[in-house]
């Protein structure tokens, strides 16, 4: 069968609307692949490919999705995947230190006592599988993607590749023995992609604003980035981090100078400051551990608070039981007794 004949011929009398057209076109493309000379291993009707992809995804996302937030308790369809053990370097048992005490969110050097206790109890109700959303924002080309790739995949790609839309990684941790995940949303820095990226700011537990240590302008812009990101979130609900990247490009003196400015700004933004290098990997792991632990502590504390002041649902209130009351009310009213 000749593949060209009419397969892609313009079919102008289409029905209206994308729903009608799309299956038609895709069916055509699939059919086209079947009529191919046969030497290409594309699956005949497309279905096997699809199922292979789907199953591949399922196992892949299985671990990720079983961690996804499930506040309503409804079963997630991808929850079946086996939960792989957390790799050794994602187990955090000691409280990570801050980068500089001049601009940090938490001076404590150990876990909050309540959190520590809750973790030791391992009470699945209060300390279950948790996930926090992290959003990374900042100017284009400051190294947001590199920062994440260094941490999540331990790679560094010299070539600049603009992020389109949003990238997404799930990184699993085990903090004080409790499984915990960070859901890292890597947004596009280019102005023209901002519309799509900004749709992902909401519900962020952590906002990481990134700037290029070698480009002071990008530091000035972090304020605007943060403002945009905070607008989509409840005030005070997110931790803010200010991260200077490409530390390897600067001399000691230079980076000290920039850091002074950055620390000042971080204090204005109520953010914690970090200097890192994705190229050398300097501080990357410490930084993300810090992010994970702070977010973890906060969510555990919030959970604990919620379980204390939980709204009593209908019909499960504790009523005084009659026996107790009779016993206690008998005391002050002996006259009643005597009449019987």
């Amino acid at each position, binding site marked *: 069968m000749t593949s060209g004949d009419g397969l892609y011929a313009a079919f102008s009398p289409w029905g209206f609307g994308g729903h009608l057209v799309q299956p038609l076109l895709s069916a055509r493309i699939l059919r086209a692949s079947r009529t191919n000379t046969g*030497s290409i291993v594309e699956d005949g009707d497309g279905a096997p*490919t699809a199922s292979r992809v789907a199953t591949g995804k399922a196992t892949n996302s299985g671990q990720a999705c079983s961690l996804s937030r499930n506040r309503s308790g409804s079963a997630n369809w991808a929850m079946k995947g086996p939960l792989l053990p957390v790799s050794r370097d994602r187990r955090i048992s000691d409280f990570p230190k801050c980068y500089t005490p001049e601009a940090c969110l938490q001076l404590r050097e150990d876990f909050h006592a309540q959190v520590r206790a809750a973790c030791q109890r391992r009470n699945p109700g209060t300390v279950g599988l948790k996930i926090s959303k992290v959003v990374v924002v900042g100017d284009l080309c400051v190294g947001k993607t590199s920062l994440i790739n260094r941490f999540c995949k331990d790679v560094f790609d010299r070539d600049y590749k603009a992020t389109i839309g949003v990238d997404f990684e799930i990184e699993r941790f085990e903090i004080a023995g409790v499984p915990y995940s960070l859901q890292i949303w890597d947004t596009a820095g280019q102005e023209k992609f901002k519309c799509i990226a900004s749709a992902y700011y909401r519900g962020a537990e952590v906002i990481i604003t990134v700037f290029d240590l070698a480009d002071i302008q990008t530091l000035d812009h972090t304020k605007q980035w943060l403002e945009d990101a905070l607008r989509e979130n409840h005030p005070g609900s997110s931790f803010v981090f200010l991260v200077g990247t490409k530390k390897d490009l600067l001399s000691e003196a230079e980076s000290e100078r920039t850091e002074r400015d950055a620390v000042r700004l971080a204090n204005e933004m109520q953010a914690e400051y970090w200097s890192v290098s994705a190229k050398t990997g300097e501080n990357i792991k410490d930084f993300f551990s810090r992010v994970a632990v702070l977010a973890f502590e906060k969510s555990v504390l919030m959970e604990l608070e919620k379980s204390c002041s939980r709204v009593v649902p209908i019909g499960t209130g504790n009523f005084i039981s009659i026996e107790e009351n009779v016993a206690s009310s008998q005391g002050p009213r002996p006259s009643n007794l005597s009449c019987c």
Partner: protein
Amino acid sequence: PRLCSPNLQLIEGDAQQLGGTIAFTCRLAENVSSKVRQLDLAKNRLYQAIQRADDILDLKFCTDGVQAALRSEDYEQAAAHIHRYLSLDKSVIELSRQGQEGTITDANLKLLQEAEQQLKRIVTEKFDAAMKQEDLPQVERFFKIFPLLGLHEEGLSNFSKYLCKQVANKAEENLQLALQTDTTDRRAAVLFADTLTLLFEGIARIVETHQPIVETYYGPGRLYALIKHLQAECDQQVEKVVEKFIQQRDYRRQFQHVQSSAMRSAVGEKIEPRELDPILTEVTLMNARSELYLRFIRRRIISDFDVGDSMASEEVKQEHQKCLDKLLNNCFLSCAMQELIGYYITMEEYFMRETVNKAVAMDTCEKGQLTSSMVDDVFYIVKKCIGRALSSSSIDCLCAMINHSIAELESEFREVLGNKLKMGFPATPFQDFQRGVTSAVSLMQSSLQQGKFDPKGIESADEAKRSFLVTLNNVEACSENIMTLKKTLESDCSELLSQGFGGEQARPKLDSCLSDMAAVSSKFRDLLQEGLNELTNSAVKPQVKPWINLFLSVSHNIEEEEFNDYEANDPWVQQFILNLEQQMVEFKAGLSPAIYDSLTSLMTNLVALELEKVVLKSTFSRVRRGRKLTSKANLQARLPSMPVLKSECYFFAHAS
């Protein structure tokens, strides 16, 4: 033993003879095998010699053949000879040059190299000429010759030049045609999406038609190079179409208009959301087509690489994968579509918010309906917007719209409902009658003092009551609808994902956004709970309390005959049940069954609690226990008419 000795001697002799035979055979065998080895070696050498002789002959033959073929313009033949020459072992050529006839071979080689250059030149020239004349058979003819001369790259790039020209011509034509289309045309609203589709289909058809030739003559794994060239042309054509689209549809200005309208303090005329409808549809359609096309290209290249790289190392495969990703993600088409979708999202969000606001403003509640029009309308809008985002086939766009919808529902719409609930449930006239307030004037005063609602007499109180109950129903419906929406989206999305749209992270991305929906649904549940508590506190409690207090006014210090009388005709409980039922009738009519159940359960708890207090305060005669029991039994017997299991359980547990 003597008998044996001669035999033994015999055996010894035989054994020696056998040994000798064996040694001889062994020697013989070794001799033979060494001969065979020598023969084998000789045979191999012979073969090599023949091969070399063949090669040299071939070389000679090629030299002659090429000349002849070139003279007769049989370029295929000439190319075949050159190909033969190029595939000869270089060491053979070296060796033959060292031989006695070295000079002749040298001359031959020189001739061959000249012929090769000549052929290359001729083929390129002829190809160019054919391309100019758009003579497809000739183009294909010379295209097939390139790989024989080892010019794979040149061949592909020349051929794709030809194909690109075809694409460009057709695209130009289509765009002109599109621009001349009448505005009343049926497809006028999606004109640019159609133009893009034609372009993509054209390229897909080209790939479809020419892939077999490329594969046959250039080998597998070469499709990438061809498509890379085609994609560059595609990008150029897309740029033109998108430019025209932006210009004709005034896309950027519309976007800016939306942006300024979206500001809360916007002055001047706001853009009418309905005007955006067609353009939003067209953009999603354009993107859907692009995604479909890119997916097609990706699949084709991947399967071609799979064949070509079946023996390749992991690194090469990864390198190829990287090239492919780079080609498809960084092409102009992807970037342009991403940009359009970025604008689209802002506009779609505006469309959704404004339309939702409109639905809220136009809210009406038909008599006899539990929920008002607003809930249906709002969810219709949200579903439409998300559905449109879904139809773009872009996972990022879909997730972004889901996020925006959740935000809209969670903050603004929930606030609307929450504010309505905050107005509270007004005190009933019935309750006021009980307090001895009869005139409308004092009703107004009491309402004013409570400061809860604008008093316009009993009618507006009724209105406010109805509005409160409807809002409760609305909140519940919202919570349900969100979960339904989530389920629908889950199945729609898994369809999209199973078709292979979106990157490898598409599913977790979606899961994350969808799980947020469940959280919002439970927020609506919380709101419902608050509303119910408010209702119990403001409407049920103040009425139930005095009724129960009446229990105190009935004497329980009774004698036997009074007890019997009470049993037949209870002075308190019957009235109480009547009152309760009367009170609940109103709610039963106005609330959805589920909420009504919750309310009854709340009410029962309240009654039980209050009754307990009162019972403990009362003085009973010795028949009090029985009396109390009958009261409760009576209550219990009547309460099941209000469908609450909880109440039964409670009374059973405490009747002892």
